C-alpha cells in the first residue's frame, strides 16, 4: 500500500542512521525529510499532509522525549515512533504515555519500522478527518444568532417548545421559527441528526 501524499520525518543526530533510514523509507515510496536535531525539526514549517515522526530518543540538547512533549504542547497531532540504541522501561513508558505509537530498539527489522510508519500515518489520517468534521460543525454552530444558539441548547437538552418558550420568555411560534432556522443552518433533517452533531462539538455538556 502506498500513500503518495504522506510524509515521514526522521530526526536523528547520527548521520549513518539518518542516511540508512532515509534510504529504507524511500524504498517503499514514502516521502522522507531528515533532520539532525529536534530544534531543526521544530524550526521547519510542516506540510499539511498526513505524516509521522521517527525520532531518536537520545540526542544532545533537546532529546526525542523533549521534542514529543513540545509537540503535545503545540497541539500538533503528528504521531511519533521512537527508535533507541538501548531503551529502558521507564523511558518507553513515558514515551507511550505521551502518545507515541511505537517504540523500536536498534537494530530493528525493516518491516517492523515500516509497519509502524504505516500505522502511524493511518492514525494521523483519521485524526485529520475527525478534525476536519469537527471544524465544519463548529463553523455551522458559529453561523447561528445568539438567540438561535440559546434555543439550540434547550432543544438538544430535550425540552418541548412550550417549555423553551416559557424559559426564554417568547411565544411558542417564535420558538418554532428559530427551530426551523437552526435545522436549516445546521444542515440536518431530524432532531436525532442535530443531537449527533452537537455531541461531537460538546454543546450538550453546556446545559448540563
Amino acid at each position: 500500500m502506498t500513500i503518495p501524499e504522506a510524509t515521514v520525518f526522521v530526526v536523528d543526530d547520527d548521520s549513518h542512521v539518518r542516511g540508512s533510514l532515509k534510504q529504507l523509507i524511500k524504498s517503499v515510496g514514502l516521502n522522507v525529510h531528515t533532520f539532525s536535531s529536534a530544534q531543526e525539526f521544530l524550526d521547519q514549517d510542516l506540510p499539511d499532509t498526513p505524516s509521522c515522526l521517527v525520532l531518536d530518543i537520545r540526542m544532545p540538547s533537546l532529546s526525542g522525549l523533549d521534542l514529543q512533549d513540545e509537540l503535545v504542547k503545540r497541539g500538533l497531532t503528528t504521531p511519533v515512533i521512537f527508535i533507541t540504541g538501548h531503551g529502558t522501561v521507564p523511558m518507553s513508558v513515558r514515551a507511550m504515555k505521551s502518545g507515541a505509537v511505537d517504540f523500536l530498539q536498534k537494530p530493528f527489522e525493516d518491516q517492523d519500522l515500516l509497519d509502524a510508519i504505516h500505522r502511524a500515518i493511518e492514525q494521523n489520517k483519521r485524526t485529520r478527518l475527525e478534525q476536519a468534521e469537527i471544524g465544519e460543525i463548529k463553523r455551522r454552530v458559529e453561523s447561528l444568532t445568539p438567540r438561535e444558539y440559546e434555543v439550540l441548547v434547550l432543544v438538544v437538552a430535550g425540552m418541548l417548545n412550550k417549555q423553551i418558550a416559557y424559559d426564554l420568555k417568547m411565544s411558542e411560534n417564535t420558538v418554532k421559527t428559530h427551530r426551523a432556522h437552526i435545522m436549516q443552518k445546521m444542515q440536518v433533517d431530524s432532531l436525532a441528526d442535530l443531537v449527533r452533531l452537537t455531541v461531537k462539538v460538546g454543546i450538550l455538556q453546556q446545559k448540563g
Partner: protein
Amino acid sequence: MTFGGSKIQKTSGIRYIHRLILVALGSLLLIVNVAGGQQRKETKRVLIILAGQMYVPGYELAEKETREALNKNTDFQFEYFIEYMDRYRFDEVPFQKKLLSLYRTKYINKKIDLIFVFGVHALSLVAAHGNEMFPEIPVVFNGVLETHIKSLKLDQRFTGCFIEIDYLGLLNTALNNHPNTRHIAIISGAAKVDRSVEKQARKAYSPYANKYDFIYLGHLPMRDILDRLAKLPKHTVVIYFLLLKDVKGEAFKPWKVAGFLSEAANAPVYGLADTYLGKGIVGGTLISYEAQGRKTGEIGLRILSGENPADIPISAEGTILNMFDWRQLKRWGINESDLPQGSIVRFRELSLWDQYRWYIIGGICLFFIQGFLIVKLAGLHKKGKKKEQELKASDERYKSFIKNSTEDIYRFEFERPLDITLPEDEQIDHFYKYVYVAEANDAWARSAGYERAEDLLGFRFEDFLPRSRPESIATIKKFISMQYHMHNYETVEVYESGITRCVINSVIGIIEKGQLVRMWGTGRDISDLKTTEKALADSEKQLRLLTNALPVLISYIDRDDRYRYTNRAYERWFGTKMEENIGRLHREVLGEELHKKIEPFVQRALAGETVYFEMDLVRDGKAYPFEAAYIPDVDSDGEIQGFYVLAQDVSVRKQKEAELQKTRDQLAHLSRVVAVGEIASSVAHELNQPLSAIRSYAQAARRYLDRNPADLEETDNALGGVVAASRRADEVIQRIRAILKKESINRSRLDVKEYIQEVIVIVRRQAEDKKILLRTDIPDSLPPVFGDRLQVQQVLMNLIINGFEAMADGEDGSRELVVRAAQDQADAVMISVQDSGIGITDEIRDHLFDAFFTTKRDGLGLGLSISRTIVEENMGRLWCAQNPDKGTTFYYTLPIYTEDVR
C-alpha cells in the same frame, strides 16, 4: 570622729589626750558659765545656713569647726540659729521661694549679728535676697568655688573662703609616697561637677602623660570601676576626686565612695577631701572642710570684733592640708618621715585611745579633785614617754637587722583573721583573699626582681604564689598541715617581675583565740643552684633520649680519632655497646677498609668543613646505601675538638621509591581500565549505531533490488552506506582495544585536532545521556605536538569525564563542556577542558592532584594524580583554575613537535 588632730613630731598621743581633756573640761565650764554668768558676756546671734541636709560630712565638719573657733573667744557668747536648706534633695523653684519666705518670717524680729553660709546654694540665696531680709548683716561663707564667688557679684558685706583643688599637689603627694609609681588611676564620676573636676585634672596632668600611664575610670559604671581597681597593675596609685553619679546615673555619696574604692583597690587610694579620710584612703593634699570651718569661724570673730568684712581678703589659704590615715600608711609601708613637712596624720591614736580610755574618763571624773588628778596625770605621762623610747630603740635594732639580712624576712598580716578550724579549701581561699605583705626586706625584693622592700608591701599571695600553679597550693596545704609552723620547705614563687625563684621557707603563724592573725617567716633563694643543676641534667637527658630515638647513626669522634659518644642506632649497626666504644679508635670499630674510604671526609671535617657524602656500607656481604654528614665541633676558641657523625641507611627509602614507581605504573593501567569501564555503555551505543545503520541500508538495498525493474542506483547508494557504517564500527573497536592495551610510553608526532576528536567521539554519547552540550574550539592551524597518543587521550578523556561529573547536579540547559586548544608558548600547545559545574574550593584544589584524594562517592582518587604524572612524563604541565562565572577549567600542555625533540 575627729578626736585626733595632731601635727606629727610635735604632738604626741599623750599630749593630745591632755588637749582632749581640756576641751571636755572647757565645755563643762561653758555650760556652767552660760547658766550662771550671762551679764558678763555680750550675746551674739549667729545664723548658720547650710545648703545641704544634715550629716553631709563636709558641712558638718566645717560647721562644727566654725562653732568651735567662735567658742574659743572670751568676749562673746553665742546664740546659734541653724538652717539646713536641703537643697540637693529639694531643688524645685516653688520650694525655694517658700523657704525664703519662711526664713523672712522666722528671723524678721530677731536681731541677727552675723550670718555664716555653707555651700553655694546658701550663698546665692543670701546674696540675692539677703539685703532685704538681713540688711547690713555681714556674711561669712565657705564651701564654695572661686568661680561661684565671681559669678555672684557679692557686695561689701560678704567675705569668707573658697574651695580649691590642688590637683598637682595631690598627684605629687601620691608620687612622693610611692616613688616607683608607673600607673595612675583617676576616678571622677559622671555627674556634671564630677566631669568638670576630671576635665581640670586631665588638664593639670597632661604634662605628666609621657612619664606615667594615666588610667581614667570615670566613664565606667561603679561595679566596673571596682572590678578594675581590684586588678590594677603593680605600681599603681589611685586618685579619687569626686563621684556623685556613675555613668549609669546611679547616685552616690562621694565620701562613701571613698570607702568602696579603697576597699576594692589593690593599690593605695588618694583622695580629694578630708571627708574621705578614715574611709580607707591613704590621704593626700586635701581640701580640708575642717580648716574651712575653722577659718570662717576666725573670720567671723574678727568681724564681730569690729573689722570690716571688705578688708578681709577672700581666699583658700590654709584650707588645703596634707593629711594621712596612719593605718593606711602602715599598710602601704610609707614612712612618716617621708611625708611632706607639716603633714597631719590621723587615726594613729585608736590603739592608744583603747589603751588610755579609762584614764581619760577617770580624769574627767576626777576633775573636781583637781590636785590629785594633776599628780596622777603627770606620772602617767612620764611612764608613757619612757616606754615609748624603749620601744623605739628596740624597733630600730629590729629594723636594721631585717634590712641587712641576706635572707628574706617578712611578715604577713590578715585583713580578716583566719579561723583555723575551717576546711582546708576555705583556708586556702582566705589566704588568697585577706593576706598581704606587711613587712619585707631588701633581700627578698632584690631576689624577686624588685628594687626595694617597699615594692613588695601590699603583695598578695597571688602575686608570688599564683593560684593556678599546683606548687603554690601544695605550699599552702603544707603550711596548714604543719599547724602553721613550716620549716625549710621548698617553694616555687612566681613574680610579675618575670622572676621565678625556688626558695626554702620557714614560716610561723601567730594564732590568737583559734584564729591565725599574722605570719612571720624567712626564706633562702636557692633558684640559681637549682636551675643550673636541673638545666644540665634535663638537657643531657633530652639529648640522649632524642638521639637514641632517631633511626640515624650518631657518634662523636674527637680529634684523636677516638669515640666519645655513640647512639643506640650506631651501636646496633656496628653491634657494639657505647661503653665499649668510648675511647676506642674510629678505625678499630669501622675496620681498616672502611676507614680508608672515609679518611678524606674525616680530614675535611677536622679542617672545619661540614661534609656530606653517600657510601655503601657492607654488612654480612650485603651492601647498604648510606647518606652521611660529618659536622665539625668548634669550641669557643675556634679550635676544632672533633666532629659529629650522622649517617642514615637509605636502602629502605630507595627500595620504597622503586616500589612506588612500579605501583604508579600499575595504577596508571588500572585507571585506564576504570576509565573504559566508565564509558562502557557509551561504547555499546557507539557500536550499535553503525550496526543499526548497516542493517537499514542492507534492507533498503534489498527493497530496491526487489522493485520491478530493480533500482540499481539507489541500491548502490544503500550499499555505500553499509560500507561506511561498518568502517566506523571497526574504528570504535580498534580504539577501545588500543586503550585497553598496556603499552610502555611511545611518543610520536600527534595532530592535536585529530586526537581530541577521537576522544570526543568516545565521550559524546555520555554527554548526550547527561544532557551536556559538548563543544570543541580547535583551530586548524595548530602545529603538531609530541606525545604518547594513548596516554594523552587517556588524560583528556579523564578530564572530560571529571567535567561531566562536576556538572551532574546542574540544571538542564546549563551544562556545557568546552574543549579548546591553542598555541601556548613558542614550544607548546595548551589544551583546556572547561566545565560549568560546581567548581572546586581552594581547600580541595590543594589536594586535587594527590593520589587517592577524591570528592566522588565511588571515585578512586587516582584520575588526576595519574593524569598529572602522564602529562609530566610527556614533558607538559597540568593545572586547573576556577572559572570567573562558574565551574572549573583544567589545562595541560604538550610540547610542539620538532625534528630534534626526540
